[in-house]
């Protein structure tokens, strides 16, 4: 015969839909609570920001953008903050994907939105050919990465429209004129939600300075590459988005209005400046309170789940364990 359930049994076997509802309510509350959140940036995130900021004005960055909107909550914030930094520093970029046929349309939407945002702030917009080159999707990540390693000019050799609509070789574009080998790029940044990080690091990390913006799922793996110096810096997950935005707003070793340094950076004595134009605190800042609520809820759920288990066991001592 089924024994009578006590309170802790009820808690342990609560209908999962109540949990879903609580999470939904917490997230909506977190999203609507607008407050400034003081931050302590992760070391790998500081290195990421410092590495990107080291790229000289007018330099060229290679961006491998391998995410689609399935990870929009993290990766879109990553790409947006990266583009905002590059656009502020007038750094040119070549963008491509080795991962997903949907990825090009996704980054095209992000570039369009950031350009609209800059236009509304009377800032110069980024134009294809002059400021960036979009070479789209390549289906085979492994072979393509080795081709980039061996001869980037041959691999990306193709005709694209210039700013006057005339088809020309991409290497005549101001973006690519100084690129003869992959190491000529000032930085390679991979924005990814998948194991394409491994493919890129394995084939390119000894030829070009690499940094990564990855989702939380890939973060622990990325840290092993960061510890070995194969990645110069990593922004991980939503916390990584907020870290990057926070450093964009406050710089590293840079005094704030009260003269105190907001984000300290041990690796360098010299300050790494903040971003002085356009948006800095954006998607990461608007999501971070909700993330606190959600993570707090998980900790609470784990603790309550365990208490319920032990309490239920104690209450039913001698009875059959369910």
């Amino acid at each position, binding site marked *: 015969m089924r024994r009578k359930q006590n309170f802790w049994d009820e808690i342990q076997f609560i209908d999962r839909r109540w949990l879903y509802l609580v999470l939904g309510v917490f997230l909506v509350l977190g999203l609507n609570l607008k407050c400034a*959140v003081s931050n302590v940036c992760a070391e790998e995130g500081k290195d990421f920001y410092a590495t990107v900021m080291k790229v000289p004005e007018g330099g060229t960055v290679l961006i491998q953008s391998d995410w689609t909107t399935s990870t929009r909550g993290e990766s879109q914030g990553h790409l947006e903050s990266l583009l905002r930094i590059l656009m502020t520093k007038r750094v040119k970029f070549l963008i491509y994907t080795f991962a997903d046929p949907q990825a090009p349309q996704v980054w095209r939407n992000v570039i369009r939105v950031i350009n609209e945002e800059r236009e509304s702030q009377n800032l110069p917009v980024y134009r294809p050919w002059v400021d960036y080159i979009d070479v789209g999707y390549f289906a085979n990540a492994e072979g393509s990465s*080795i081709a980039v390693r061996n001869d980037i000019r041959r691999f990306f050799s193709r005709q694209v429209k210039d700013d006057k609509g005339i088809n020309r070789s991409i290497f005549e574009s101001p973006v690519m004129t100084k690129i003869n080998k992959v190491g000529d790029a000032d930085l390679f940044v991979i924005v990814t939600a998948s194991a394409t990080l491994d493919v890129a690091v394995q084939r390119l990390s000894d030829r070009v300075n690499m940094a990564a913006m990855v989702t939380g799922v890939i973060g622990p793996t990325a840290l092993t590459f960061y510890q070995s110096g194969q990645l110069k810096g990593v922004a991980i997950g939503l916390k990584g988005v907020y870290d990057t935005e926070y450093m964009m707003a406050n710089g590293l070793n840079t005094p704030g209005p009260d003269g105190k340094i907001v984000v300290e950076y041990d690796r360098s004595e010299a300050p790494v400046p903040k971003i002085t134009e356009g948006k800095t605190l954006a998607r990461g800042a608007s999501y971070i309170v909700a993330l606190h609520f959600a*993570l707090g809820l998980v900790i609470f759920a784990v603790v309550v789940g365990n208490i319920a288990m032990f309490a239920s066991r104690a209450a039913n001592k001698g009875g059959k364990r369910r």
Partner: protein
Amino acid sequence: MMPWLAQADPRLNMWALPPYSPQLWIAVIATVLVGILLVFGLTFLPTNLRRPIVTVMTFLAGSFYVGLWLWPQPVAKVETDLPRDMVESVGFWFQDAQQALANVANILTAFLLLLGMYSLLRIHLGRISKKHPDRAFSVVLIISMFLIVIFGYADWRMRTFLDPQNLLELKTNWTIWNHGRDILFDGLLMQMDAAMFSLIAFFILSAAFRAFRIRSVEATVMMVSALILIISLMPLVIYQSEMLIKAWFPNPSPGSFNPENYKIGTIAGWVKSNLQTPSLRAVEFGVGLGALAMGLRLWLGLEKGGVSV
């Protein structure tokens, strides 16, 4: 001699013909036909020859990359560079051929991706023809598929061939085809993609509540590690702990005890760097060794369940 070889352009030769010329069309169609004939011929191949063919193709494809790694390679070669000796000639050949092979790999992988869509279409067309009880959903799937194919292709065609001045960069110049693609792709597909994956957040909370229990030493160790990491992802908590440490040790003198080491962020960072990273590295290392062994087995045709027949 074939007439098109006599043309003056140095870029033209037996392998490279004028764009969209009749002779190019003939060469392309003839190549496809010869290829189809070869495929047809392969259907008559005796069973005992099938495995060697697959194994040899795999071995040759792999050998190229082994050779590419072993042979000295030119660095930043430009088109005007000429090899000085046999070693450089082979190095140059490897590098040029690798570019062609990367293209081949991209194209073949694309054909393999299309196989997935073909398979999906086949299943759902089968459901409709067999009057499966869920056939209405299959109809929905096929209609959605065709709608985005039509609008997506039309949008691409307009942007690539009919918009020399990049006017479609501005939304105000969009036509119904561009808006149609945008509504289907950005309005529906992207939002549903994000929604589908975000469902896991709800399941993970339920799983954490029900399954993350202190039942063994291993489970406890895993839980403590997870909780430390989760706390380190909450900036407010770390910041408040820093403030607390600063309040307890307001002015440490240089060269003395370092209170920074006792901040939650520093402790979590230490756990991350010195326990989590090396343990994950061990896993990665094991996976890497497995991949190397699997690679060698595949390359040498020893893998029974892989590409062998």
